[in-house]
């Protein structure tokens, strides 16, 4: 899966979680940018990514995610392993 495909799939997960088809995230997107992005939706996002990409993400990895860009990098790294 290349970076573009990862990016598209990540956007799909966000649209499902926020029940909003018009959402498009970018590398700089953070919780401050999307209404309703709280602790429980953050966990939904992580769970959604785990299911969509068939990977396991730990809390220690979540700790270091400051924006969507960090998430994209983490997913790319996990898919390459």
């Amino acid at each position, binding site marked *: 899966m290349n970076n573009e495909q990862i990016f598209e799939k990540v956007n799909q997960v966000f649209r499902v979680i926020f*029940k909003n*088809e018009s959402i498009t995230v970018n590398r700089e997107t953070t919780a401050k940018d999307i*209404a*309703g992005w709280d*602790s*429980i939706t953050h966990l939904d996002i992580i769970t959604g990514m785990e299911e969509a990409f068939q990977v396991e993400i730990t809390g220690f990895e979540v700790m270091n995610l400051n924006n969507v860009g960090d998430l994209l990098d983490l997913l790319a790294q996990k898919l390459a392993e």
Partner: protein
Amino acid sequence: MQAVLKDIFQTVSVSPNRKALIIASDEWSYAALWNYATAYSKWLNARALPDGKIGIYTDNCKEMYAAILATWLAGRSFIPLNHKFPKERLKSITEESGVVGIFCLESSQANCLEFLPQEALILYNAATMLPNVELSESLASEDLAYTLFTSGSTGIPKGIPIGHRHLQALLEDMKERYPLGENDRVLQAFELSFDVSIACIFTAWVQGATLVVPDLNGITAINAFKAIYDHQVNFVTLPPSALFYLRRLRMLSMPLPWVTKTIFTGEALPYNVALEWKSCAINTSVDNAYGPTEGTVWSLIYALDEHTEEQTINGLCPIGKPTRHVQMRIVDDKGEDVGQNERGELWIGGPQIFHGYVNQPDKSKEVVFQDNQGVYWYKTGDIVLKNDHDQVVYVNRKDNQVQINGFRVELGEVEHHLRGIIKSEAAVVLAHENNGVLELFAFVQGKWDEPSLMNEMRLKVPGYMVPRSIFALEALPVNTSGKVDKTLLRSKYLIR
């Protein structure tokens, strides 16, 4: 000067270089905190705003913490304006309570202009350019310290004014119960609009300890864990639901041996959650702290011990005994005291109890009264009992109030807004627990599009009040008495 400010100033004078505040990789000494607070208060006075309260927009930066002290130094009180709340709600809060100025970062200016004009905004960067204005002196002890807004069943948030005298009564107990000093690091993982933040901030600062604040965006529990780990925090306050996130993301295998005190609060504490936390924070003692905002953060506290397990009801730990200045009664429907082990409503009284809601005299009369000794009492609406160990145990609520992520939510308020959107009474909201986390689910009658209903709700209520799912049904089922059949809705749609 208020006692709380005097206590802080004591540390500023004796140990100015001691760390007062750590936020991410940024920190302030007590001297820096005080200098900024003084500068902001002078700036506030120089603005010559009309009489009224000062809003503090929750930028969750160092400056925000100095602004709290600044409002008090300037002889004012503050109202937290949670940036995560919808604009409509913040607008109603600022109007309802007479906010005349708002402290904020320059980056939040555009948001705050929705509530007040430019000349009423106090920007931190501008405030550091010191005008030469004297501080106002000697506030009376009755002076208002802050006002917090909580969910109201009629759709209007209730403003709860808390005075310095109330806060002082709480802090006297805190200092005695939790003696802290230079080497203690205290976690503050709550939004300023949630009153537990006040207890964390001032329990630390009046004793010269260091306050550690994690990022409050994303998963707060994870960020709190990171802060505990990175800064070796030893005094931790968390809602029990934090453990759900830590467990789910496999973080509880990391030992935190330096944590010596943990307070669980904001929600009922399941005993197994306390045990799970102790498997990670192996050297901690655990307290369960209970209290409505009306009673100034905490009114009863229970210290878990070897007898806790046998005292649980429905797996929940007791809420213990009243704090130093709180009196308590457990009463039946007629207001008569009930006996040991009998269930009744908890009433709390004493100098921590507020005197009534902002602009809601009728609601205030329902729940607050003064006895013939002049003591204020608050009827909590919580059903409790006193067990054989003389510990109070929480049983359930008298009404439709629930705690979501530590926040008090009136189901009636969520229904009120939902009904306003669909312009019909055919809406019902249920709270349902999944894996130890309580969530809201709504049911509406008619062909409604869930995403657009969710978006409209997000414009009206804070995130924690937006239902996790909204089910649009052809018709809401009714039971034999003609009421919406909540049991059926729960079993058909929510039990997985």
